[in-house]
């Protein structure tokens, strides 16, 4: 087999090994993927579902987990009228199989060898690839300082809330700040609002620290946040974005 053929990306079979409800509309699927080559934090996979009549459809999902042999976790948010998310969140069960291609994406990745402080800004389900970065950081015992700013509609829609609380306590060097856009917890000092420049400025890193910035979420959110960061003095080339498309 030539080098090229070995390195062509092929569809693999993923088997659902576990299912975990994260929020009312998001679920984590633990997959076993035979021959999984490992992955970098922030990479994604393409998932392809094929019906009995041959109709097939595919979508991309960010990998939520740190590399762990043949185990890969995807956290999927239900999207209204979403063909693939309807199955993955609503119907998939342990033992189900579907096709998966990856890992792909060398741009929106964080590698532990990168020493700069990291700013992660998540909108809704945009938290998924950023969580992979947080988990890889912990897995390798990195001391690179991480700050996550997580914008959600209301407290119940925050994915991984318990794990993030535990990691802030245990991982040393991770800070998490929430921004609520529709409904805030009782006693929250800020009225519900879209993530503002002031909030991001106080919860993030100063531009002088030259952090590596990763922004992920719906397209409108990502554009607004990227503009805020550039206005605050962050160099555009230090800001990496992953847009998920319209809000689901």
């Amino acid at each position: 087999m030539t080098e090229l053929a070995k390195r062509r990306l092929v569809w693999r079979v993923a088997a659902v090994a576990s299912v975990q409800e994260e929020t009312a509309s998001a679920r984590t699927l633990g997959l076993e993927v035979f021959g999984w080559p490992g992955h970098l934090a922030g990479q994604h996979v393409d998932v392809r579902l094929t019906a009995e009549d041959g109709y097939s459809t595919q979508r991309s999902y960010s990998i939520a987990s740190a590399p762990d042999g043949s185990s890969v976790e995807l956290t999927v948010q239900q999207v209204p009228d979403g063909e693939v998310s309807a199955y993955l969140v609503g119907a998939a069960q342990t033992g189900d199989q579907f096709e998966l291609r990856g890992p792909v994406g060398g741009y929106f990745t964080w590698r532990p060898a990168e020493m700069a402080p990291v700013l992660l800004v998540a909108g809704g389900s945009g938290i998924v690839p950023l969580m992979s970065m947080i988990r890889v950081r912990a897995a390798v015992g990195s001391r690179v300082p991480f700050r996550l700013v997580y914008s959600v509609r209301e407290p119940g829609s925050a994915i991984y809330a318990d794990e993030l609380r535990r990691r802030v306590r245990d991982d040393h060097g991770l800070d998490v700040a929430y921004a609520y856009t529709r409904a805030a917890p009782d006693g929250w000092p800020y009225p519900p609002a879209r993530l503002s420049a002031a909030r991001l400025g106080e919860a993030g890193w100063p531009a002088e620290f030259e952090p590596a910035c990763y922004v992920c979420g719906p397209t409108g959110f990502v554009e607004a946040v990227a503009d805020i960061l550039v206005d605050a003095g962050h160099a555009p080339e230090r800001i990496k974005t992953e847009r998920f498309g319209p809000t689901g």
Partner: protein
Amino acid sequence: MTDTYVDGNELAGPLRELFAVDVTVARGRCVGCGMEGMVAQAHVYDRAPGLVARCRGCDAVLLRLVRGPDRAWLDLRGVTYLEFPLPE
């Protein structure tokens, strides 16, 4: 209502089927306006048949990828060149 788009990260899987390297980290130059950037930073429209990547500066089409059952068409006329990092 404007079409909304995602970014060039979406192209990673489809292009990795064709190329032995990750094309999304290649830098390209738009034929329309001369803007340079990484393929990952392009605006990608995925609601039509196939994938269309447009320049984030001038909206010109950079590339089109259409996949059939046993072939793929890749139209790259919107980029002057693609520069690939190839570590030793």
